[in-house]
């Protein structure tokens, strides 16, 4: 009777039948595997580095770099009185942000008291900012040179990356907006041309586009002596693009003060306008009054303190142009490549955003008697922005990351500067870790900002 016996045997419970034990077991096994692999990799790295005679640690960061960077952005070296003002300024900015956040976390609407605090803080920042500018004499601006440290080199690379990313994002948005609207235009020809633009540049790798533009600038444009001349102001040759440069003069700082005052008065008038519409239903146009204030104040400042800015034109002296604003071929190529490639994507995003609005909304707006501009500003944009912002954030992120292609044309942004540092110092692991963390921080900051902006525009939803 073997069968009977089998029935009697009580199956022992294994620990694996316990859910929480199983989960903990899996996780510990997984963690151990990861840690083990990590340990193996790190020990290999250490072994290899000892073999090659490379020391580890971030100590090399303060050493003299000994190489040159073709494009540097001067950084303020602050001393004495200036340092004090900067610390004060930063403290006020921090305080402002803190107050703002606390006011926001209390409720969805800002209480009137918090609003007053905000405005006071704004004033203080405005005043302090202009003070900072007025006392700017104690600040020395220094650029990267051979005697600077590796950390300064990294900082220069980061600044170049940010410069390119910032300029690229803004221009790509504007171009993309125009092409995207062009794709929806009633004009058949414009629609087709915009479509060709999008489909052409979206389907060609960005690196190829950058290299193409780089070669066009370097290889096809004429030499310095035969440079293409636009009205003796703009020059284009194989060493880059030359623009007239705005230089600050003696009247510059008072003029900055005028700008701050104008912005403050516009803020006040905006509040007044809102009040007037809410209470009396009357519209108060703020454009002309603010223009008047700005014109009056700036005229006063120019009469008393002299012109704020002067233009310096690029002039051919010897073998190269002097003065003016110079954009290197590398920058021009990177900028063109990034802007054209990204704007094709932005155009598609804008198009889908506008198409997402139901036709009834526009018809309802027209029926209410809104003008075209009002319709776009009050009905179309607020709704399409909600659709547009999330994918646009993705585009900004990829543009910021694509600046790393500067490696290919030797534009000294973060990736290519860190490549140079790796080659010169041999500190591969540290430099790579640093570069990656900088890129992660930039990505994080962009997504934080765009998420914040997104919440600002979706708040109105009911």
């Amino acid at each position, binding site marked *: 009777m073997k069968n009977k016996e089998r029935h009697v045997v009580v199956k022992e419970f294994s620990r694996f039948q316990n859910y*929480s034990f199983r989960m903990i077991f899996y*996780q510990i096994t997984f963690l151990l595997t990861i840690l083990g692999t990590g340990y193996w990799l790190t020990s290999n790295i250490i072994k290899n580095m000892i073999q090659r005679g490379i020391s580890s640690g971030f100590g090399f960061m303060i050493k003299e770099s000994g190489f040159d960077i073709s494009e540097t952005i001067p950084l303020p070296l602050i001393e004495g009185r200036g340092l004090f003002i900067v610390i004060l300024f930063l403290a006020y900015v921090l305080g402002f942000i803190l107050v703002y956040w606390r006011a926001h976390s209390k409720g969805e609407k800002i209480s009137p008291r918090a609003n007053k605090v905000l405005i006071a803080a704004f004033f203080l920042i405005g005043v302090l900012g202009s003070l900072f500018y007025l006392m700017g004499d104690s600040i020395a601006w220094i650029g990267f040179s051979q005697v600077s440290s590796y950390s300064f080199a990294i900082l220069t690379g980061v600044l170049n990356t940010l410069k390119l990313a910032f300029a690229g994002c803004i221009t790509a948005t504007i171009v993309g907006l125009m092409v995207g609207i062009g794709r929806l235009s009633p004009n058949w020809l414009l629609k087709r041309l915009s479509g060709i633009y999008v489909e052409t540049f979206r389907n060609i790798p960005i690196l190829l586009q950058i290299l193409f533009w780089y070669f066009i600038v370097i290889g096809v444009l004429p030499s310095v002596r035969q440079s293409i001349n636009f009205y003796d102001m703009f020059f284009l040759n194989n060493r880059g693009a030359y623009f007239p440069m705005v230089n600050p003069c003696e009247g510059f700082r008072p003029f900055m003060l005028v700008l701050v005052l104008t912005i403050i008065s516009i803020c006040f008038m905006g509040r007044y306008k809102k009040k007037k519409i809410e209470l009396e239903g009357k519209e108060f146009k703020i454009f002309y009054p603010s223009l008047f204030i700005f014109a009056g104040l700036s005229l006063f400042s120019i009469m008393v303190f002299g012109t704020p800015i002067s233009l310096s034109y690029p002039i051919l002296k010897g073998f190269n142009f002097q003065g003016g604003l110079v954009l290197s071929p590398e920058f021009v190529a990177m900028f063109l490549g990034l802007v054209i490639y990204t704007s094709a994507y932005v155009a598609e995003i804008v198009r889908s955003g506008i198409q997402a609005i139901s036709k009834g909304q526009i018809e309802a707006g027209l029926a209410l008697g809104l003008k075209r501009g009002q319709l776009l500003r009050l009905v179309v944009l607020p709704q399409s922005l909600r659709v547009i912002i999330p994918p646009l954030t993705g585009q900004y992120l990829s543009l910021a990351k694509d600046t790393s292609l500067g490696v*290919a044309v030797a534009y000294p942004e973060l990736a290519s500067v860190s490549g140079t540092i790796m080659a010169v110092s041999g500190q591969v692991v540290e430099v*790579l870790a640093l570069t990656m963390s900088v890129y992660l921080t930039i990505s994080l900051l962009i997504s934080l900002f765009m998420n914040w902006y997104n919440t600002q525009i979706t708040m109105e939803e009911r």
Partner: protein
Amino acid sequence: MNTCVSKVVDIDEDAIGPPRLEIGILGWLKSNLFSSWLNTTITFICLWISYNLFVFITKWAVIGASFGKAPENCKDCSGACWSVIRDTWTLFLMGRYPSEERWRLLGILFIVGALIIVSFFKKVRNWRGKYYLWAFSIIPILILLKGVDVFGLKVVDTELIGGLLLTVLLSIIGLGFGFPLGVLLALGRRSRGLPIIKWICIVYIEVIRGIPIVSMLIIASILLPLCLPSDVSLGLVLRAQVGIILFSAGYIAEIIRGGLQGVPKAQEEAAWSIGLNYWKTMVFVILPQALRIVIPPLVSIFITFIKATSLVTVIGLFDLLGMAGVVAANPKWLGKIVEAYVFVAAIYWVICYSLSRYAMNIEKQHKAREH
């Protein structure tokens, strides 16, 4: 007596028809190009731009171009020198793959073509094992490509593979291996009751998505050899491939996570209630539905990766884009880089454009099925 008599003229309305400016070609022109002053201005500006573009391109690419095979043909032509392409097109397509072994590439094309044609038959389409068919075809393809001594095929050095062949290989293998990794990462990120695994997956995905692919390739080319014991050495192609696989896994994971979110929760609960365990639930119930949703974004990520593999040029590989530099550095064709770039761009464009059309078609079919 003054009487106002209005004369009624009998008009046959059918004979006159609508105004001539409102119908036919003229009507189309009026409504699409000249409906208002602004519209007319835009039309003329666009006409001017497209005329100039057309003239410039035809002058450069056709009228002033030379189509001979020898470099001498290019001496006195004002436009493009297509002789470069005629002379070096094999380099662009397959790199320096030995010419006596090229029949093997034809064999690979034959296998892929046969698979595609077979897939058109309904019987195969409805057959469950079709994915295995595709998955296992990789083995003969790789054997043909690399060569194995056992079959009497000469082993080809991986560094000789280049051009379009390298681009396609890097992106297909990158996505092929990144896909299972991505699925696991996505499942890990959505897992419940496993916080450690979940967080490791989240950190991996977010780090990968936060860094540029150039950094990843530099890591793969410089850091990877440091991470391995000193007696193991990987070729540059293989290192780049590892980098692309690790990179694509992060992006695929996010796409699949989107698909997983699109599957109704009731599906999972139903699977649990009929007694399926976690893996059976996922493999037989959830993933098939999730993957069906994510086919279009997967195709677009494939397009992205075909374009992104061009970045391996930065670490010194000669893929399709890298070949343009190689050709233009050749003393015979010195400085003919614009032609090379245009040719390469055209190849990329054709591939990416047709794939994106394909993705759009699938999406349309899905939408049609939903309604």
